[in-house]
């Protein structure tokens, strides 16, 4: 067993873990963060995307011990039911999803994109989401949601 300490959504947490433990399992099973959706467990579908030290990673491809000392942000740390993040509002307004399974991961990637490239073009947005599978095929509305989120963030910034 190994002891690790990391910051998850602003909370410092300590865990005793197995060396082979996967970060997505830790977040989901030990922290109850079900918004870290696990699907393929092979890094192919993007559903478990989180931000680690601000960068998007697929949590199913990272050992929990690699997260030692890191800052982890999951969808649960982005906004809450009664206090949504502008990106989440934009996705709701533009219907940027159907079943919602891929949505948390998509929003995490969007957050990173809009922080690093707030003026991304629609094709750059599409490319930035190529790590995500939306089996419902809501891609066009996801792209519109990202554009709307960019607008919202810019307006907020201007205030």
């Amino acid at each position: 067993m190994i002891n690790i300490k990391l910051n998850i959504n602003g909370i410092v947490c300590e865990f005793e873990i197995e060396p082979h433990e996967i970060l997505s399992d830790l977040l989901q099973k030990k922290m109850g963060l079900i918004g870290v959706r696990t699907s393929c467990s092979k890094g192919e579908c993007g559903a478990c995307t989180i931000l680690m030290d601000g960068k998007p990673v697929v949590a199913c491809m990272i050992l929990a011990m690699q997260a030692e000392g890191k800052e982890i942000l999951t969808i649960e740390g982005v906004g809450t039911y009664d206090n949504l993040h502008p990106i989440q509002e934009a996705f709701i307004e533009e219907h940027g999803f159907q079943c919602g399974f891929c949505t948390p991961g998509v929003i995490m990637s969007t957050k990173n994109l809009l922080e690093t490239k707030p003026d991304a073009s629609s094709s750059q947005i599409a490319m930035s989401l190529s790590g995500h599978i939306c089996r419902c095929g809501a891609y066009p509305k996801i792209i519109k949601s990202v554009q709307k989120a960019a607008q919202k963030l810019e307006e907020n910034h201007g205030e």
Partner: protein
Amino acid sequence: MESNKSKSFSIVGKPVPIKDAKEKVTGSIKYAIDFALPDMVFGKILRSPHPHARIKSIDITRAKALPGVIGVVTYKDAPDLNWESCWFNYRGHILDNRVRFVGDEVAAVGAINEDLAEQALKLIKVDYEKLPAVFDPEEALKTGAPQVRVEGNAREPRVTTWGDVTKGYKESDIVVQSSMAFESQQYAPIGRNACIAEWAGDKVTMWTSTQTPSEARSAVAQAFGIQINKVRVIGLPSGCSMGIWWINNFHMMTVLLAKKICRPVKIELTQEESFAAVKRRHLERSRGQIGCKKDGSIMFLDIKHIIDNGGYGFKPDVGQLICDLWGRCPHGRFIVQAVSTNLLTAGCMRGVGDVTLGAFTERLLDKAAVKLNTDPLEFRLKNHIRVGDPLRKVGKGLANYKTPPDLKDNWPAPYILSSEAIHECLIKGAKRFGWKEKWQGWGKPLSVEGPKRRAVGMGSGTHCCGVEMEGNTSAIVRVHMDGSVTLCCSMGRHGQGSETTQAQILSETIGISIDQIDVEAGDTQVSPWSHGSIASNTTFRTGFATREAGLDAKRQILEIAARHYLKEDPGQLDIKDSVIYNQDDPGQSIHLKELMSRLLPDALTPPGIIGRPTVQMPPSTTFSRQFAVQFVEIEVDIETGQLKLLDYLAAQDSGKVINPKSLENQVIGGAIIGSGFAMVESLVFDKQTGRILNPNFLDYKVLRAPDFPIQPEVIFCESHDPVGPYGAKGAGESPMAAAIPAIAQALYNAIGVWVDVPMTPEKILKALDKI
């Protein structure tokens, strides 16, 4: 039944956000995989390594002895009963002493955690007697082929026929023959599934993600030989399902294990199990001919279509509604032959039959149009079905269906199409897409630049608006003491936004805001029987029941208001924003909340209002169809075979649109999954064992955001259905059917060769004789 043509709408037709949107963007919505009971045991399933074998003996002693293992079930524990999933997507025992495909269930272990359960599986010793297996649908039909099932491999052919094709042949100026072979598409659910089952005495409760809570309940009762009132299914939301998460045998395994070990059990499927052990789209083969007059009128269609059911599917047909789309032609014969194979069970996937058989029919149409040198748009405009035309596909048991005599005034005539805007879809879609400018003639690209050729294509599709097999759908409206309302309708939640559309219909019907309405779509203990959201049922048939139940609730509200408070004729009253008012004197009013919370003087209770449909929908297959027309511009590189979609337009006739943004998602979502099947999606089966070689997203490719045009256009052409709620119709499946023909036609125009699906670079290069 209220007339559809009465009024302007307050919420029908508005793009309101879907009701569970906040749960979805915060990641807090719980699918079955997220659900747990405090004292549950974890189950894992042992699966067959052989495509076909008899279990000679099975030894579970070592598995049971592993510390932490609670119990094991094998075929010896299973009831000697067949169970059937809706639409015959499964027929068989939960377990018997035979395995029929690689991945078939053999046993299940329950343990205190998943790792131990997994370990215990390796300790079960099974002695198999291998049996000959068959993997090809045509081989499986031959005399002497290994028999997959006791019922034999071949189902009775389903024939839809009208006129006389021999006569049609003679009357035709041109006749064209063709054939197509399809590969198998996987639902490829990124939302995996789980089942939790708990017995309390002789009652069982099941939590799972399902589109069909009612049918899941009936199936569990059937599988265990118990009464329906002993089964409660709590349907949880699922990830994009498209037909996979109805009721499957892994559910039954969970219930069986829970029964044996007397503990609640959770079985959670891995991604690989979801791909290779639940179900898939059928493997399908089409062959047939078309005959036309020189003026382009189709004289006959004659098609034979084979589908494979895999190990446990038992479908006799694939709902060939496509024969209605071109059923104007005087003579037709569509024969569907279903057959069992030792491959993974096949079942209904979005647009079943109308995607495949539809694509083939469109291929025949296109080849005829090539021969006649006619624009495919003109060809379709000339031949498509129109309102008042006969419908050719007659539902089983409905051949003698007659309109009930007391309802004749506003009921559609049986087997006559009630509404259609496919003509408008063709005209408006073509105009908006610029078809006339872009269409260069058959086999002629729009542009050639080095190895890159651009071209356009168009295709059409149809599907039913629900099917009434096993009965009609229902809904219950409960009005609470504070004037809020719960709508109970068993339809599951798998992403199409059905709760929202139903709530919009109910809001419009009663005259209360959508925020006052909550929808219970999964719990069979409170929701009446329904087909669930399959076969494009929900908006049309559940929506009809919802509106009728809403009208019944409204009638009761107005009667109470009239009798106790407003002293008026109930017909004089109406409801707006929860206020019941006198239409002649709007100041005379009472708020619904006040009405519902006051004790009734004659009963000394608050009013108990439960609205139920008082009219049942006529069999929807006898009158209604949904239609899709899609236009695409592609670019293909003839050196690499790479195919790209550059521009896409989808025109849709789903009747009156209830929620345009939800429907846009459904239409484009359908086009994308259809395009995926057209271009990349295909399960690969091992030739020796039938094992699926690509049961994951690494090897099974699907389209991603950059693979589809970023801003596809959607046009709604609203026909006005006389029965559907406010004129609405089904929507989810026809958009998937139009994609393959559109892309295949565009590719033909680019390279002058027809290519079977999926049109991968490899197949394109082969078609060009480059490899």
